[in-house]
């Protein structure tokens, strides 16, 4: 059985990459990753026996991203009344930050598919496992995501970069 510490060390950065695509800001992404790992830690006896604990923890991550963004949006509405706009996360280039902001405008399942496919570099089967759907549905989400981004991102890409 893999120790939780080893699992955490091995998977942390990959999870953080996916989280950076799904939520705005490095600290929010790190919080999200911590929450997901904490969830795994609480039931590690069970999770470690799964065929793929990493698939389980990714599933927790992508599902928690939605509720975290809802929470952050509500906090942000309160903060924006009194403070200056939040700066772009320093670790990502402005182009990357803009791309993920456009992706986060997509329907939730499309965002998840994009993050897991491009950042997580997972296979279709792994994405389907993490998202709890069929591989066909993953392909469909990715296809529709690219189609929607084609208009917004490509036009915006020419202007911005």
């Amino acid at each position: 059985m893999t120790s939780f510490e080893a699992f955490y060390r091995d998977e942390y950065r990959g999870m953080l990459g996916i989280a950076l695509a799904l939520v705005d800001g490095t600290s929010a992404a790190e919080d999200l990753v911590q929450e997901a790992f904490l969830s795994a830690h609480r039931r590690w006896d069970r999770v470690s026996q799964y065929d793929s604990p990493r698939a389980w923890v990714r599933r927790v991550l992508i599902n928690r991203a939605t509720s975290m963004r809802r929470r952050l949006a509500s906090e942000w509405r309160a903060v924006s009344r009194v403070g200056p706009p939040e700066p772009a996360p320093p670790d990502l280039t402005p182009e990357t930050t803009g791309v993920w902001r456009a992706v986060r405008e997509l329907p939730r399942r499309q965002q998840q598919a994009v993050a897991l496919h491009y950042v997580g570099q997972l296979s279709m089967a792994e994405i389907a496992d993490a998202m709890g759907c069929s591989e066909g549905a993953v392909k469909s989400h990715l296809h529709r995501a690219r189609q929607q981004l084609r208009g917004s991102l490509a036009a915006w890409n020419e202007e911005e970069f």
Partner: protein
Amino acid sequence: MSNVDQILQRAADDTRRAAMQRWPAPMETRRPARPAWLAFAAAFTLVVVAFGLIPLLAGTGERAPLGDPTPPTAPLVTSSTVTETTVGSEPTGSCPSSELPAPQTVEDLPGAVGETRDAIIAAATACDFDMLENIAGESISTSFAGGGSENLSIWNDKGLDPTVTLLHLLDMGHATIPGPAGEIYVWPAAHAYETWEQVDQDDLEELARIHSEDELDSFASADGYLGWRLGISEDGTWLFFIAGD
């Protein structure tokens, strides 16, 4: 490779690079240590209680007979309530949904739907997660974990209690929506409305039990209810318990 694909690949490369530069943050997996003043306060309370009992016992000079079959009663103080209860019994408050009034009986549900609803209510009232997972089966869709009954337990990690939300939901008005194999019975009825305009004052009062004013405003902006909802198919299968889009 399309232009969009290239843009996404570039962003992904940059994101992985940024992630690789971060060291795993130390995990806070242990319960934080109690502050010293709390330990002192606890010790002080124990001393006071002990000294308070001595004159009481000395004054009566009596002891409860050994093997007294009648358990003594005493007020049990929880964080929010004072309840008269039997010493040694299960303290109240460990299952918050048990303190909620039982949802009203609904007469006009098909038998199988009513049975599943009743079973969920019974399990939720008892905070019986095993039973909830049994009712849910493997095909249920749940928020936070993408699906699968096992994931109901993830709710606990959110600091939320699904049992309370479940009971509130099942006490609301219901409606039906078309499903792939017949009608799906959904709670709350607002989930079946086509626009937010159809939500009336009664609906709003019901929804306010499980959603904040901000959340209700966001549903109004989205022109549709996107909050917690539960669906049971005509054959009694518990299909979903989800929130969001």
